[in-house]
């Protein structure tokens, strides 16, 4: 298991790797575990016990901002310009892609998950109004906050 940045081939940076994650009851945590750590396959792999479980995406953000040893995963909207985003390639040999609303929506950036809204039967009344809002005005807000809006 890689423990220091130098092991990873980063010259001149003999620093320990500090792993950050969301709390175990977070959907983001489960998604990352299943899709990134286990690479979508059945396995018994888990986050290392050394992983710091931060109370929220902002907690991850804050530690990354001030600790050069830290690496973590976060929702796109939580990333600020002073943080470094890593490019990810779908398979070995593929080009590395940085995340953005566009690269997520056209599938080039592989680490993304959809959020679903469930209703009991066809949406009606206040529920329908709420969903209409999300699909309409809400998309603009989502984009403004830095998250990824739906494509049609």
């Amino acid at each position, binding site marked *: 298991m890689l423990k220091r940045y130098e092991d990873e081939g980063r010259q001149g940076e003999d620093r320990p790797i500090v792993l950050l994650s969301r709390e175990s009851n977070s959907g983001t945590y489960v998604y990352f575990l299943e899709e990134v750590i286990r690479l979508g396959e059945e396995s018994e792999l888990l986050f290392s016990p050394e992983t710091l479980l*931060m109370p*929220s995406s*902002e907690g991850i953000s804050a530690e990354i901002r001030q600790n050069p040893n830290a690496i973590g995963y976060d929702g796109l909207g939580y990333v600020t310009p002073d943080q470094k985003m890593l490019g990810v390639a779908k398979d070995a040999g593929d080009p590395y892609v940085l995340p953005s609303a566009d690269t997520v929506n056209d599938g080039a950036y592989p680490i993304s998950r959809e959020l679903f809204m469930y209703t009991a039967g066809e949406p009606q009344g206040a529920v329908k109004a709420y969903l209409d809002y999300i699909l309409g005005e809400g998309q603009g807000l989502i984009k403004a906050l830095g998250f990824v809006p739906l494509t049609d």
Partner: protein
Amino acid sequence: MPGSARIQPANAGSARRYAVQRFGFALLVLASLLVVIPILFVIGAIVVRGLPAISLEFIFGMPSDGMKAGGIWPAIVGTLLLTAGTAIVAIPIGVGGAIYLAEYAHDTMLTRAIRLAIVNLAGIPSVVYGLFGLGLFVLFLNFGTSILAGALTLAIMTLPVIISTAEEALRAVPVEFRTVSASLGGTRWQGISNIVLPQALPGIITGVILGLLRAGGETAPILFTVAAFYLPSLPRSPLDQTMALPYHLYVISTQVPGMPEKIQYGTALVLLVLVLSLNLLASWIRNYYRRKRQW
């Protein structure tokens, strides 16, 4: 008393012993400074970084822009409501229990059981109170996450503090007060209510204030029983949720992206000011009445 320790021994002894003593005293001073200076530093840092955020709008305004602007009035109100609720429940039971222990109870197994229970309650971790409050008030009694559930939880948590300090205050009143009252024909309760209680009142009030300020500053008991982060309006009934300062500080410092630093420190400052001013009040009451004491 330090006075007696000023007596210099007749035999001056070797200079070495005094050198050791000087060194030792210096260590003690160092230790005390190590204790005290960080306290000043914490308060200082919060004041310096939080003061820029303080304004009438910050204190009395409603939050806006996802909490990143506007005021924290609902959190302040929430904390005041929870503290008031705690007081309403904990003071009668606490003072009543203290009266029982100081004035009525014999030294039986049952009384020792009560004392054991008080020690126990005082030691229970705040998060365990949160679990209890969740299990009993929120779920079992179906109050839901509400001011009622939160205040009841905080009240039970504050009970041991109030009972202990109130009992001590009652016991500090010399026996003579009671004997004189009895010799004048007063019943036991008349003695208590007319003589002992008023004499013990400053001590009791001090204890109550100290207990309440701890209740107001707690986060873990209200995490699962009442606290909410962003409520559009102030609570209207005891069954509503409410915001609260300690929980608010926790959330804005760990969960909200892009929260301006000065708002975090500003919230911490408001909480600190609230708590410390109550602390000051309690100290002042205690010192003032200590001088006016009739024994």
